[in-house]
């Protein structure tokens, strides 16, 4: 009955064409070990839901796994644009469905709350809404009694959510410690299945002794894949920070297609295991400082 599995098996459970929501925020707490494994397994035609993302989207785009990205923002912050994402969108190779953070969150909430829509003021007055006029995925409305403008955000079905956390037990009870979920709870609540990579698998007693620190109840987590430093090169507060050096080297390599091909193979998808990947990037898997 254990939900503990391997990164390889967890990634294998994601079918081509799936809608995959990716946790974390920007350079924080992204499920990079799971994402790397999706790229290694050469998934095809994935539709990514990534509220505020960066390297995870870029790896999957570089790996040729992505059909469409639903996002509020994809960047490396001050370290630059996400190069493969940028190029793929500019060339039309990858489609983008444009949102803001809260429009996307509200679509996820409509899904998790099983409601026809969630209202927000997000997006009013911007060009984002016009992009959705045909599909009606988000639509501007006027409240009858008050005449107030709002945006109705319709359901967004998600096949799989991928999140990274500190600890889980065999039953799937999961802890981000301290409990800072960014917006990961929104994707977990909306997704049909959730896979969590974790820094370490612990005994259930670790949860029953501090139950107020538990982040996800076991019935919300379908599979647990151990991955020490599983957010690298992103951060996993407070265990480790993001590695600016990796971001910079990656961006540098991306200036030349051949250089990038080599870098992406040697430093990202080439290494057989997550441990090999960390070794290739000179990262210790020892206890967090």
């Amino acid at each position: 009955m254990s939900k503990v599995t391997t990164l390889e098996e967890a990634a294998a459970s994601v079918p081509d064409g799936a809608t995959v929501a990716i946790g974390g925020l920007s350079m924080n707490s992204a499920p990079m070990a799971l994402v790397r494994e999706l790229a290694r397994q050469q998934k095809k035609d994935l539709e990514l839901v990534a509220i505020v993302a960066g390297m995870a989207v870029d790896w999957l785009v570089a790996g040729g796994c992505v059909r469409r990205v639903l996002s509020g923002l994809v960047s490396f912050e001050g370290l630059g644009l996400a190069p493969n994402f940028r190029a793929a969108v500019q060339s039309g190779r990858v489609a983008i469905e444009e949102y803001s953070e809260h429009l996307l969150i509200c679509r996820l909430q409509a899904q998790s709350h099983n409601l026809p829509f969630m209202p927000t003021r997000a997006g009013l007055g911007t060009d984002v809404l016009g992009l959705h006029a045909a599909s009606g995925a988000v639509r501007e409305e006027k409240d009858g009694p008050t005449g107030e403008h709002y945006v109705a955000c319709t359901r967004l079905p998600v096949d799989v959510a991928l999140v990274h956390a500190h600890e889980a037990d065999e039953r799937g009870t999961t802890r981000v410690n301290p409990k800072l979920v960014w917006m990961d709870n929104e994707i977990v609540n909306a997704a049909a299945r959730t896979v969590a990579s974790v820094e370490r698998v612990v005994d259930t007693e670790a949860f029953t002794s501090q139950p107020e620190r538990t982040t996800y109840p076991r019935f919300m987590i379908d599979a647990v894949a151990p991955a020490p430093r599983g957010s690298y090169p992103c951060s996993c507060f407070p265990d480790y920070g993001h590695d600016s050096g990796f971001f910079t080297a990656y961006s540098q390599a991306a200036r030349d297609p051949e250089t990038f091909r080599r870098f992406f193979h040697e430093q990202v998808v080439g290494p057989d295991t997550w441990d090999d990947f960390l070794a290739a990037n000179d990262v210790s898997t020892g206890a967090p400082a």
Partner: protein
Amino acid sequence: MSTPVPGYDCTIDELMAVTFSRAMSNDTRAFNGAVSFIPVCGYLLARRTHAPELVWAASSIAVDADPEEIGDSTLSDSLWGRASMLSNSPFDFWSYAQGARYNTFAFRGAQMDACGNVNNTVIGPYESPKVRLPGGGGMADLGAMIPRIYLWSSTHDPRTFVERLDFRSGMGWGDGGDHRERMGMPGGPRLCITNLCVFDFEPASKRMRLASLHPGVTADQVQEATGFEIAMPDGDVPITARPTAEELHILRTEVDPTSARRREF
């Protein structure tokens, strides 16, 4: 990376941070997004000088954070030191934002127009962009929700300050006039602080108006660097006020000892 301001004992990043700081007050309740070094310096400096009660939530998470230094990401946990709260409820956060419990946010866009609207989505046509930018992130949300909006730019040039945005990612004063009011949006942009000058907004049209010129910069230079016609105030345009020695000392030694603010230049 750090242009000296003629006649002032500081560089342009420092003048901008101090100017931003002075626009804050004790009832400012702010948070920040990505690549927001000038505003982060401004919040921290204001709190250490004239606005001790100012609320700032580092990367919208760490309330009252007082970091030892500012790292290379204004969204990262390196900013969270000595916070009184690490917020863990996105739901509460959006309630604070929509309900104006947080009342202050600062944007910079790859493009900005005369009414303080911003573009961080694409350069060129949306369907076949010349440059795909990161995307608006929270701009479309917070532009509509937050009453006190501040804009800044370290690249005051006609590519940044444009007559017409290629894409409106975030709402400033919209089409100008009473557009925000008609949409039921609170407040609007107050200032735009650039490396050349400070703009406020002309009350009726809600277009950028020259509020002060940084030392050594002329109104003509600003107009030349701006892709739209700038409004002029009645009377002379003042010079942006000089930072005090105390402000500069605190900024350089306590707020931002590693000069992270220069990452935007």
